[in-house]
């Protein structure tokens, strides 16, 4: 129930017949998590707070820097060096004492993301790097949470609503339906040091806030299934239609355990994951604990030699992408072929496109295995 002061505070919302007292109460009962309290996070937080969202979580481990002040409008000179999440919550609490804030000042990782995200009904992505964006997307897919996406580059922005399900309709597309594969190192020179028009995150962030408020109150048409592109230089707005594609969603870990073990930090300044190799002798040792292993043969089924020592799973190289869900994300997966060429290439693709971090390449393949262990 809204008290007397709230009825006054929110009167301009309540006067809208589409929102009214009922809609404002929905806002009061809503729980929204804002990931990133930077350029996008500041306007999102300001308008969700002012609009009366009852509980807001703020995730950011970063501290305020002088170069943030050009666009991160919650912060002042005196705040430099302070934690963004804590500072933002303190300022916002002054703006609206009816909102409950929870701050998460630890870095979001595969270890804590599910637990944090699960406490909220709607998630807002205001992060500044691809690693976290893929991780947050995958967590939202696993937990069945809608994700309000915003991203900026120089003078341009993108907004969408992912993984959103309206009653009687199919679940909307996810970030991976748009960009199935994280970009390579070369196209992400340094995520934090690209120029950006200061007002741009304000424009994109307020659109994200509008989507959140529409979803909570159930009014209008959210950007689910559509990607909005804004160019602040020309003020051109394009809205592109996106379809949910099951094929690309396969890149998402299938359960919490896999998610916790997935490696999202292999680009955006981080070293790309190298290919881990083992030789025939090392494999012999590993085979003593075979229940911790998965052996993947990427040869065609009619290839010689037939190997009975450790037959486990055979997926011909060409079919890998279609059958990737058969691969374990928790066991050590030893990938092999005849001489080691295809297995190496398979691991490169699986690591890049599906973020596996538990794959091992058998050096010199079965030929090496036979020579090294004198087995047939």
């Amino acid at each position: 129930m809204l008290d007397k002061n709230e009825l006054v505070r929110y009167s301009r919302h309540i006067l809208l017949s589409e929102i009214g007292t009922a809609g404002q109460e929905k806002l009061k009962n809503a729980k929204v998590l804002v990931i990133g309290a930077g350029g996008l996070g500041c306007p999102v937080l300001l308008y969700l707070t002012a609009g009366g969202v009852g509980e807001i979580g703020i995730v950011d481990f970063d501290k305020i820097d002088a170069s943030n002040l050009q666009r991160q409008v919650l912060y002042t000179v005196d705040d430099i060096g302070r934690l963004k999440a804590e500072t933002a919550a303190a300022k916002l609490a002054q703006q609206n004492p009816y909102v409950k804030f929870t701050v998460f000042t630890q870095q979001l990782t595969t270890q804590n993301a599910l637990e944090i995200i699960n406490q909220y009904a709607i998630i807002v992505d205001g992060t500044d790097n691809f690693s976290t964006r893929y991780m947050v997307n995958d967590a939202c897919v696993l937990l069945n949470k809608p994700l309000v996406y915003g991203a900026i580059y120089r003078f341009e922005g993108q907004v969408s609503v992912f993984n959103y399900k309206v009653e009687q309709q199919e679940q909307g597309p996810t970030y991976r339906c748009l960009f199935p594969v994280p970009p390579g190192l070369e196209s992400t020179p340094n995520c934090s040091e690209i120029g950006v028009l200061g007002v741009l995150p304000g424009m994109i962030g307020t659109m994200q806030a509008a989507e959140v408020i529409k979803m909570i109150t159930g009014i209008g048409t959210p950007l689910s299934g559509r990607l909005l592109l804004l160019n602040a230089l020309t003020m051109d707005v394009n809205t592109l239609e996106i379809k949910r594609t099951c094929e690309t969603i396969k890149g998402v870990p299938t359960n919490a355990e896999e998610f916790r073990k997935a490696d999202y930090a292999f680009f955006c300044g981080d070293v790309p994951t190298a290919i881990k190799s083992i030789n025939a002798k090392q494999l012999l040792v590993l085979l003593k604990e075979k229940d911790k292993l998965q052996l993947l043969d990427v040869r065609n089924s009619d290839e010689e030699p037939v190997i009975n020592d450790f037959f486990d799973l055979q997926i011909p190289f060409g079919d890998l992408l279609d059958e990737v869900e058969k691969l374990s994300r928790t066991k050590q997966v030893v990938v092999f072929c005849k001489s080691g060429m295809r297995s190496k290439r398979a691991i490169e693709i699986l690591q890049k496109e599906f973020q596996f971090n538990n794959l091992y390449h058998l050096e010199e393949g079965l030929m090496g295995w036979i020579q090294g262990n004198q087995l047939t």
Partner: protein
Amino acid sequence: MQLKFFGKLAEVTGKPTMEITSIADTDSLLNKLLQDFPKLKEYNILIAVDKKIVKQNQQLESHNEVALLPPFAGG
């Protein structure tokens, strides 16, 4: 047909829009662009034909408008 480039792709091609004639489908278009602008190979490129994102090769007609965009990470 008209091509529209977004984000870094417009920086690589040097212009936000381009006219192109006689291209059969989206795969051939992408191949031609990669040939003309090899630096495009570095990017994940999303293609939309007449404002619909396409994931498979699609026939193109001269009246189509094709948008090519990369992912953005900034926030």
